[in-house]
């Protein structure tokens, strides 16, 4: 339960409690504004009845032909609002927008190979690993093996326009590509 609304530029003044988190990056202003100036319909916020931001999602639409899809660039929920279905609502919403507004075939996202909680959550929502992207992230110094910490999974979920599930595969974890092979 929350208020879902569009993400606004001035929300950058209010997202501290969400962004001061190990897995969440605070990017330059230009990052957020470049998304808002191209895909404002793929950026959203959920807030509490008291008006406090619980989390946000920033996405984009890319690819052509059978590669046309929605992409989740950033999704983050403040620790105190986790386990309330906030992410699930964001993802369902983004899937709807990718399908209806952009006629996408699937939605994809990147996640650190060591962010086990997130991977499990996305799998629960119907996402699966499409490939492993080598050295996609910077090292966090958490003490995992360097490779696991820097590699990312590209996870995908097919949308209704891909009824044959051509955009996913079962052996994705074994397919390894380097970071410069992905967009």
């Amino acid at each position, binding site marked *: *339960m*929350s208020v879902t609304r569009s993400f606004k530029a001035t929300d950058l*003044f209010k997202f501290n409690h969400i962004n001061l988190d190990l897995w969440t990056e605070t990017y330059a*202003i230009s990052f957020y504004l470049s998304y808002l100036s191209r895909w404002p319909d793929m950026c959203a916020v959920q807030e509490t*009845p008291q008006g406090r931001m619980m989390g946000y999602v920033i996405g984009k639409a890319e690819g052509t032909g059978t590669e046309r899809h929605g992409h989740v660039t950033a999704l983050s929920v403040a620790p105190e609002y986790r386990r309330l*279905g906030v992410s699930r609502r964001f993802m369902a919403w983004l899937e709807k927008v990718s399908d209806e507004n952009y006629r996408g075939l699937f939605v994809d996202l990147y996640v650190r190979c060591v962010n086990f909680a997130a991977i499990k959550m996305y799998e629960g929502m119907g996402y699966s690993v499409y490939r492993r992207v080598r050295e996609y992230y910077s090292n966090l110094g958490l003490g995992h093996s360097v490779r696991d910490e820097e590699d990312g999974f590209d996870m995908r979920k097919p949308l209704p326009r891909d009824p044959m599930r051509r955009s996913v595969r079962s052996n994705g974890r074994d397919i390894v590509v380097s970071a410069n092979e992905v967009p």
Partner: protein
Amino acid sequence: MDRQIRPIYEALDTNSNKSAILACNKVLKKQPNNLLVKALKALALVRSQKVEEALVLCDEVLAAKPADEATLAAMMHVLRGLGRHMDMVTMYDDAYKQQPANEELGTQTFFANVRIGNWKAAQQIATKMHKQFQDEHYLYWNVMSALLQAKDPNTPETLRPVLLKLAQRLVSQSPTPSYYNADRFHLHVTVLKELGLYDEAYELIESEAGKIICSQFLMCEELRREIWKLKGLTKEAGERAEQQILEVKDRNWLEFLAVLDATFADLTVEGADVESAKGSSSERITQTRELFGKVVEQDGVKDRSGHLALLELEKRCRHHGLATDSTTLTSLLESYFQHFGGKACCFEDLKPYIELEGEDLATWTSVLEKQTAQATSVPDLWRFINAQKLLRYNLTEAQLTPEAETQRAVQCLNAYLEGLHLGKDLPSYELQPADDLAVLAAQIFVNIWKRTGDQTPLYNAAALLEYATTKSKMSYQIRLHLIRIYRLLGLPSLALEHYRGINVKQVQNDTLSHFLLSRASTFSLAATGDITYTNECMETSRIYVSNSEETSEFIVRAFGGEKYSQIPDFILFEECLDNSLQRDLIKMEHVRMRIAHEAINSELVDMELIELKFIFDRLHHDNRDFSILANYQPRCGASFIDQTESLEKTPGFGWLWVFLKIYIKAFQLASDLDDTVEDKLLIGDRPKPSNDPETKLPLKERLTKRKQEEINELSSDEAAFYDYASALSEWLTPYHDYARPPPSVVLAEAAKLTEQKTGHTLKGLELPPDAATNGNGKKDEEPPAVVEPPASISKHFDDVLQRFKEVLDGKAVPFELLHVVTLAQEAYLLFAIETTRFKTASVIKQNKFGGLSQHIKDIRNKSTAVINEMSGALLNRAESEATQESRKAVIEACKPIIHESGLDHDFVLNVAKKITDARKQIYDGIGKGMAKLAKTYA
């Protein structure tokens, strides 16, 4: 040609500005009038910070009125780098006039106006472009520009409806309907909304196409809700929401609010017959309760909305006197707690509903008190944490005795240590589920300090939080608490350490830096050459430069990509950051540190004077994030953030205004610049003064205005400093005004300096032929008679010394001691700033200021003695810190929290060592800095 130019671009692309300049020079040798190369050289110069040289080239290129795209593009970057947006507009205007058929030039001219928010011109250009090139998007540029002009505060009231009607007429002329594009549609509805044409707007959004757009685009859906509200469709919105909740299972809280608003709609209509409205509402209340009950039944613990909506319904019933059963509220609360007490958000959810009294409170309290600390699972633990927060919220004055509070703190701490077991297998970077118990315990200790004045609880809070931060390394909440407490305890190095641990980045520098930099000059060791805090101000302020360089580009991009819905927000964002209160609070702190660190000469004085005057014309926005700091203090008292505010006064708009007045006045006295000189020396555009009518008054009048609401934001010591500063400047003004060299002399001097530096004369400067040689000519008037300084100036230093002795021996927190000391130092420096002119023997002689010189000397001797005495006492105090005894005192204070394992004696000893070392360092540094300044300015 291309062969010669390419290397220049390549060098620029790789940021090799030096080789770019060399490559340009090579071409310019053969073709001295090549405009493009001149422009590129100017760009390379701007990027290498050689502004004066760049200016010369820049002006040459502009004078030639360039019209080719390459030169224009290069110049765009040059002018942006120099902050000369007005010139950019002129440049493109001229070029477009030369080639009116050039669509790209038209577009760039439009964008140049967009960058500076010149909507009127933008609108005219869009009109012209639409006529000429017929493309529909120019029509919408026109509409958007008209709308923005109508909303601009500088637009006269009478013109606004005219512009909005123009916008409406333009949209209706569009060959393709606006609903083919969500953003055009959004703009169309917005124009109708602004005109108050709600019926037309309603028709549009409820059309077949409109409905689809609203379902697909959140921003349009938000506009739909607004229009419904403006049309007064409360009941209809309620019915629609009910459908959404039941049929689509929408759990958007806005739908529940719509149902609630509809339920009480009859009662909120003005002038309604209350009795009959109550009757109809009662019926609806029953229906609504059934609806929400159904939702609760369906959702169970899966979703909170139904449960929370029932609470909100009951709250509103009580508000309207329509509650039928007095036990409903407490039983709903109990049920909510049972269902969602295991979630972190429970406390925040329930806070609006628990301001209870009497029997209600007793029932509710007994429910919460049943929750024991024995936690076998994380939700169990959360239930206990929530119960503690909820109980604490309703504690009364009488329940807050130091004994009871200590007991509560220890109870929370014990539960915390116990609760750590639940997270013992978590990776080190995860947050411990028990964290909030440590935070609670710390807040309780702070409350005890606040109520008794005894500082020992603060050490308990610090030590237990230090322990918690070793368990939850990534917890910003624990670190923010430590920063607040360490600042009170006068430990800037430790506060900085934790601030860095939070890893504040980008725009967060604006919203979060107040935690570190509020009144940061209190902690600065700049006088000793340690510029840690000064640098922190500089680093933090970088975000404002990237905002002014980048954000307007996205406004341009939003026009280019026709994302009209984003434009007003981008503009607001840019403005909030550009005119950020925190930005200028940091600037003020930086100035206060700088004068202690650097030689006070004309370079410093002139530059700061110009910058502070710009700031004085701004209308500030406060973007600081205070809500991020948790508050678990009882509602009968102050919040945690207020309790830990240095001196209980948060610097805000008024505080900034007072300090601006003090320093502008002081620098004005010390400076030789007057307005005419300043205009000549200015490089970038002069910022537009804000719309505040105050900015229209003469500066002199504004500077002397004293406002009580501003003074209310000052600590008592700052208020005394303000009085002193006012008296000092008032006394010295006539002598400065008389002795200041005339503008022509000042300009001649500036011109000479520029020429030495660049080999070129200052642009647009025509000096009277004799100005350069005439020197400080004889004045027509007699010099003002020297009068005695007001006694308050000298007395200020007596008072300060008295205050110092009080806080040194009293119970005040160390922050207060440092505050008194650094303000004394500041008063001393202000005196130095305002009397430097009279140190020159020739000035005294020429103006017959012999008597003045003696007065100044008297005050200087007196104040130097005071500064030296304070410095000595502080250095003595520093010696007594960082000893075994002082450490022992901290450990003794922490007795209530020391445990056998983990948070044990050794751990606390380490914290004690850190604290006492840091304390010694700051006392020692400030003391030595003062002694040094006293030597410099004696």
